[in-house]
């Protein structure tokens, strides 16, 4: 399943790159793109564990940039 999430207050381009790398490491993620200019997070991951994977991704992003919110 592939899904696009909007992000708010993603202020640093380098952080976007860090988030992307961190999310890519989560088990079950097939592909991920954090679009800094468009403020969008695109995740492609296993269907069965999709929600759990997104939860994990949100946690990882919080770690990199605590002010940034992923709108679900």
């Amino acid at each position, binding site marked *: 399943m592939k899904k696009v999430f909007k992000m708010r207050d993603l*202020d640093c*381009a*380098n952080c976007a790159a860090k988030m992307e790398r961190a999310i890519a490491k989560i088990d079950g993620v097939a592909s991920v793109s954090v*679009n800094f200019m*468009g*403020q*969008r997070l695109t995740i492609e991951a296993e269907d069965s564990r999709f929600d759990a994977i997104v939860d994990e991704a949100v946690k990882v992003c919080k*770690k990199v940039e*605590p002010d940034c919110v992923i709108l679900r």
Partner: protein
Amino acid sequence: MELSKKEKSKLVRIIAALCMFAVVFTVDLTVGLSVGGGKWAWLLPFALYLVIYIVIGYDVLWRAVRNILHGQVFDENFLMCIATIGAFALAIYRGAVGEKIEGFDEACAVLLFYQVGEWFQSYATGKSRRSISALMDIRPDYANVRRGNELVKVDPSEVRVGEIIVVNPGEKIPLDGEVVSGASALDAKALTGESLPVDVKEGDGVTSGCVNLSSQLSIKVEKEFYDSAVSKILELVENASSYKSKAENFITKFARIYTPAVVTIALLLAVVPSLVTGNWLVWIYRALGFLVVSCPCALVISIPLSFFSGIGAASRHGILIKGSDYLEKYDSAKVFVFDKTGTLTKGGFSVVKVTPTNRKDEILRLAAIAESGSSHPIATSVCSTYSGEIESGFTPTVIAGEGIEAKKDGSVILCGNASLMRRYGVKFEPETDIGTVVYVAHDGKYVGSLLFADEPKPEAREVLSSLGNLGCRTVMLTGDNARVAGDMAARLNISEYRASLLPQNKVEELKSIIGGKNKGEAVCFVGDGINDAPVLMSADIGIAMGGVGSDAAIEASDIVLMRDDLKGLPLLKRIAKKTMRIVKQNIVFALGIKLAILLLSALGIANMWIAVFGDVGVAVLAILNAMRVGKID
């Protein structure tokens, strides 16, 4: 200048800190702050600068602490704090051992300018994002739908296919459909970049996103909202920068090693020469200067910003690009393969020649009478070319494969090909030019002939030659036979063509062209996006044109020309070229300056002032340069 709340409050803070800094710094330089002298002389300047430091940098300090707790070691905030706190510590140490007190001002300045740079970055990205969302004004907020005898205002997504919606002047058309009553002019500028209004009347199809200009229209909905042109376009533009270009990937990879590398070198610089020379103060100071340039953000931001501006500039001209990688590839596109019918040509039959010319009106009048009952493309073309009134009362009979015979009170009109003329024994003058010929005879006498052909689009020749001037090869693919294709190729001045191709042959032909290209070049295929989706998909860059609202076109292609106008191709070439030039400039320029500053600080030539000025300066310049992409006409 419109600023968000966040940007405004930060700007106020920066200005306040700057004023305080200016006052303290001037007093420090002129009168001197080290009152009393002695062991505690550093205390007053320290206290004053510390206040400024906290005003300007409390958020950086806070983020540094928080991110360290989260295990983010090479965090820019943290490194900035180390550099500035280190400078403070060195200054205190100097004061305590009785040396000249200096360095507090530097520490404050570093943080101050760092914040200026950050502010500018967020302003620039915000501005650029806003310019795209202004473009996104095409999103309709509501639809007036007729339910029973009432007109209800609902969300566009709640309207079903087949329902009737009413669009008043000044409102946006919320869903794709067909006009069932009313006539008006539509403004499609936001969709296609075309500023001339389009007239629509009963029976015409209308695209969502257009603004109704003059009078009320009733529209029968043909597509649900998520399927309507406006949804497809919004989705495409909003996700545009998710496909990343090589340049972007390069720079994020670079940033990943850059910061740790700078920090490691800074550490070595602080320790190794100090152990050798014993001059700890000097080398620690130089190492701190190193850390000032450790933040790669300016570099990382300026690349996507350049692409974003380029994509935005293209959208303003009605060219939608699916991702920054396609803009990058388009710049290296060296081969343009075109579908003929409907792309290079108008598609359809136009009357191109009437023989003899002096009987033009007579020939057209008769042909229109004969053809008026038919829906054949030739008949439509005749009837739209003839401007007078069509005499009624004739009974047409279709003679399959030959033409039409129309009779009224003993008067007979014949309209058809050579075999029709022969069948009725009419002597005619054969037409030798290429195209479809229709001969017209009246009461057994030959009147004249009409020649129909597909016509090149008015801009096609010019566009093909300007692509040629840019060093691009152009190829035409067509299902027509070699003679027709050759004739059209000559009229278009296109050097290469492949004729008699079945749809599946087009894919093979394109693949063989792609197979023969040079490395690093890209092959574009330009088509109408309706019948050639497989070809569009097998090209390096699939370009669909004039397909507003066709989801097949939007899905299969990488670039969509919303306006049915080939001039978008050379224009996009200019935009792509400018974008790539600026991207390269930014990479070289920003990296070059950063490396130069690193070198100069290591050698002790640049102090922290120069380092921070250089770093923030390069960020601001790179961003200004990136925003320049958007200014193209």
